[in-house]
């Protein structure tokens, strides 16, 4: 205690020096950043990958699709995860990025389980979220105010929902949450609440509903009978090489696609019977 603490003063300098001299680490790693919805999937794939290839690490971070796209564009990471097409984001030059569609995710409207409702039409849904319908009574339900819970702006899930349900109408200003977990918690506990979320997040605490008589199932998504779905993208800056290339191939391999992707509630891209462009043009895939 006498004098030793003085040496402590030297430590920050040491730390800085350590970082300055290009701290060389052994082993190899790449970083994938972006969409928090995609994070668990890539994380799980990364875990499997590391188990098979010791000393090679996939560093997976959330942060949102916007972060993922701006980071991959600036080249500070190897993979940018996004729920959206890169071209949908302003400020992103999509031409330099290579899109890898790794999974498909369906989005379903969810309501508080106390509501007896089982089916809504797309038009009714749109009216609810634009604020034209404000009471469940208008839809044949109980006399209860509709509590609309939206996702934050720029969220991929919200984009998918608005693209295929609202079809260009603007949503009303309502409660917004930046995470599915919060949405689920709120819908589960708030009487009269309605929101939407990706299939993997659906659990017993909330209730899904049919849209135009179609149930939200993976099978319905693969045929585009259930229209509210989107691709999950992993972008690379230029064609991937080295570890990145191997990892991308690994993610698209049957092992991950059939085991991890399907298990988590996403839909493997290989299972899709149709493909769909951003503009909504649907084409059959002949497998």
């Amino acid at each position: 205690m006498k004098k030793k603490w003085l040496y402590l003063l030297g430590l920050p300098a040491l730390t800085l020096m350590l970082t300055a001299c290009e701290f060389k680490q052994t082993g190899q790693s790449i970083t994938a950043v972006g969409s928090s919805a995609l994070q668990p999937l890539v994380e799980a794939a990364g875990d499997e990958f590391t188990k098979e290839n010791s000393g090679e690490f996939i560093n997976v971070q959330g942060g949102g699709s916007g972060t993922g796209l701006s980071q991959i564009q600036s080249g500070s990471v190897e993979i940018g995860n996004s729920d959206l097409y890169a071209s949908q984001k302003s400020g992103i030059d999509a031409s330099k990025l290579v899109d890898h569609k790794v999974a498909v995710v369906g989005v379903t409207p969810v309501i508080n389980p106390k509501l007896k409702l089982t089916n809504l039409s797309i038009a009714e849904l749109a009216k609810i979220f634009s604020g034209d319908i404000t009471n469940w009574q208008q839809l044949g339900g109980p006399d209860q105010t509709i509590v609309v819970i939206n996702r934050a702006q720029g969220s991929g899930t919200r984009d998918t929902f608005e693209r295929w349900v609202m079809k260009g109408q603007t949503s009303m200003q309502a409660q917004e949450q930046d995470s599915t977990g919060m949405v689920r918690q709120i819908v589960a506990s708030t009487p009269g609440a309605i929101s939407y979320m990706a299939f993997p997040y659906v659990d017993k605490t909330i209730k899904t509903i049919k849209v135009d008589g179609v149930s939200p199932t993976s099978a319905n998504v693969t045929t585009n009978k259930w229209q509210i779905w989107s691709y999950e993208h992993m972008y690379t800056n230029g064609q991937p090489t080295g570890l990145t290339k191997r990892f991308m191939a690994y993610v698209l391999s049957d092992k991950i696609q059939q085991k991890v992707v399907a298990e988590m509630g996403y839909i493997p891209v290989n299972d899709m019977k149709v493909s769909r462009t951003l503009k909504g043009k649907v084409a059959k895939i002949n497998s």
Partner: protein
Amino acid sequence: MKNDEIRASLLKRSRATKNERFGKILTGLCIAIILTVVLAIFYFVASKGLATFFKDKVNLWKFLTGTVWNPGTTDAQGNPQVGALPMIVGSFGVTFLAAIVATPFAIGAAVFMTEISPKVGKKVLQPVIELLVGIPSVVYGFIGLSVVVPFVRRTFGGSGFGILSGTFVLFVMILPTVTSMTIDALNAVPRNYREASLALGATRWQTIYKVVLRASTSGIITAVVFGMSRAFGEALAVQMVIGNAMLLPSNLISPASTLTSVLTMGMGNSVMGTLSNNALWSLALLLLIMPLVFNLIIRRIAKKGAMHR
């Protein structure tokens, strides 16, 4: 001979002098690093936050008074929709309400600890208050969501999310800060003020109310303002209970939003360099300026207090 040696040593730079210079440079360096960090943060936030106004040509007045926050889109005239008023109102709402609720409790606890029962205060209340500071804001948010929101929903109706829930959570969060600073203010009142008052036959409460609290008013206000600046910057806990609707709050139990909640929510979903991102940094700039304003207020109060003494 010895005399000459001493004379020579007096004229030489001694070890202590060199040592002194070393210390001064070393500590000066530390403060310089901190200052650099502070300035860097200011520069960073300001350069990004001001870009909204200079690069994207958003009208500052419209930014502060507009009520529609939708940075990705433009209104009928082609102006981007970046009206921050709902968040500003939300932030100030929860901050002021939390301060209003917390102040009597803080003063009460502080008076108890300094005037009524310093022993119990030091042994029980002081550790309790320090513990409250230590509880992470994530945990506060977690409790807010599972206890406060349902409570508000059951008692006041609505969805439970809103300014009222935010107020309750912030109240507990700023209480320790305000209390401990109020204690300092009360302790600064000279003992003989109290003795004089008691000697004149005043009761203890009269002494507290008419002498001690009067004499420490400026210190107490400083404490409250300081607590408010804390409340203003709190993000996670508030975000979890306020509902995050970018609407001008019409009552205390409808979902609202604060600067911090919008900032944390939107940052990941926008691309750096775009207007939507810059607009968020403008909110951060507002957040940075507000403590500055609060600080100025504190200084004003402190100066006034000093003059009265």
